[in-house]
């Protein structure tokens, strides 16, 4: 009797956080991380990046929590700088990408058959070429460096979201409640802003949030390969590619902590995007 009663009780006590709480926690963590990044980039900036040949290749210690590199630079300062740079690039690239996707998606779905064919073909074209090759080419055309990386990442990340938004609008356009709205005397513009856009808003926000880690990873990837930011900037990609030379000498902290920081940031925004997608959908919001 007793054991029967306590079983479901203990279950509900042990229940994990629900999705809303989980999402709020992730948002709080992400906000803290961003704050630390921005603050750290401002305070630790110049001092930590200076060369100090007396403290070369030191493993993590109290004075240098993430160790120092072969020129005696503080790895904590470099990692923070690198992440804040990555964050800026990711934000810009994902934002512009999402905007391009919205414009092209709407144009394809509402702008007539010919425009639709052209845009769909463009999407297929961009999806058919490997991202990394395309980013390198575009970055090269734009003269490399920061603007090259941003242009490269921006111009390769819109197709998937465009396709999603186009399909969404196509489906909505012939939805029963949209047809009814037109019969009730509402104009096309009214229907677009009141019926279509609210349906696209979550897709757009989630699309943007999921683009963001992608953009950061690709920025790090092409910088790692040497086609992105200049080696003088403490980008994560630069730090990782430089540390490769010292890994065999046993300096594991050079790659481990920056890599881990990148992973944590990317994964956090990934989780945030996924959770928001589920919360925004009225069908799964109450699960």
């Amino acid at each position, binding site marked *: 009797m007793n054991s029967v009663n306590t079983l479901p009780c203990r279950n509900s006590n042990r229940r994990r956080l629900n999705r809303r709480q989980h999402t709020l926690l992730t948002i709080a963590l992400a906000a803290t991380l961003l704050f630390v990044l921005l603050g750290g980039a401002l305070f630790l900036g110049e001092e930590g990046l200076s060369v100090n040949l007396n403290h070369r290749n030191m493993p993590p210690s109290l004075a240098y929590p993430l160790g120092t590199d072969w020129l005696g630079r503080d790895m904590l300062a470099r990692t923070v700088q690198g992440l804040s740079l990555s964050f800026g690039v990711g934000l810009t690239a994902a934002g512009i990408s999402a905007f391009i996707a919205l414009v092209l998606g709407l144009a394809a779905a509402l702008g007539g058959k010919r425009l639709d064919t052209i845009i769909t073909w463009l999407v297929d074209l961009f999806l058919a070429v490997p991202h990394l090759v395309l980013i390198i080419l575009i970055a090269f055309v734009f003269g490399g460096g920061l603007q090259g990386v941003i242009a490269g990442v921006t111009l390769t990340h819109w197709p998937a979201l465009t396709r999603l938004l186009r399909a969404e609008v196509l489906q909505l356009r012939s939805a*029963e409640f949209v047809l009814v709205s037109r019969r*009730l005397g509402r104009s096309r513009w009214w229907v677009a802003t009141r019926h279509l856009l609210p349906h696209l808003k979550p897709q757009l926000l989630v699309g943007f949030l999921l683009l963001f880690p992608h953009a950061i990873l690709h920025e790090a990837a092409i910088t790692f390969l040497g086609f992105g930011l200049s080696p003088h900037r403490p980008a994560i990609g630069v730090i990782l590619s430089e540390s490769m030379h010292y890994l065999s000498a046993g300096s594991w902290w050079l790659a481990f902590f920056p890599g881990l920081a990148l992973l944590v940031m990317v994964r956090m925004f990934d989780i945030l995007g996924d959770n928001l997608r589920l919360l925004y959908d009225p069908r799964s919001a109450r699960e």
Partner: protein
Amino acid sequence: MPLEAINVSFRYKSGPWILRDLNLSILPGEIVGLTGPSGCGKTTLARLLAAFERPEAGRITLDGQPLPASGYCPVQLISQHPEQAVNPRWQMLDTLREGYIPDESLLLALGINNEWLKRWPNELSAGELQRFCVARALGPGTRYLLADEMTTMLDAVTQAQIWQAVLRVAAERRLGMLVTSHDEKLIQRICHRMIDLANAS
């Protein structure tokens, strides 16, 4: 003054013909029943008359004129699936007031609970949603009402309540109605004349 379908033919894409050379006329104040087996084109005909679809051949006219392309359509359709006819991201109050602002007495007659106005569509049953769709379609500009299996998903008492409210409004304003149903008794009870679509076309 009548709502007319003149030599209307229709098929979806290049599929088989669903309606061929169909003629139909509904006068103001007249309630016409439409019966026939499943798949014979009852819903399609209703959608054609309300300009949700365009006929492949023939015309739909109101007072001899084609239906207006924009603005409030004088022919309103109440469909069989209310859950598809309301925006899932709108609260019911917004849906109810999309075309005009219905008065309290109509809401009362249709049995719409004031509590429901603040709810989302997925928090109401199909029968409850249908009442909103009925209220929404009875705007001042409505002259013809097409009820496509309007009360099929409701229990008998609620059916009676909604039909009484609708028929009273229809009588007051001399609305023309087309009632589609598999319920023979309902059609016989409320309609002035009956069309069997299986034999008509």
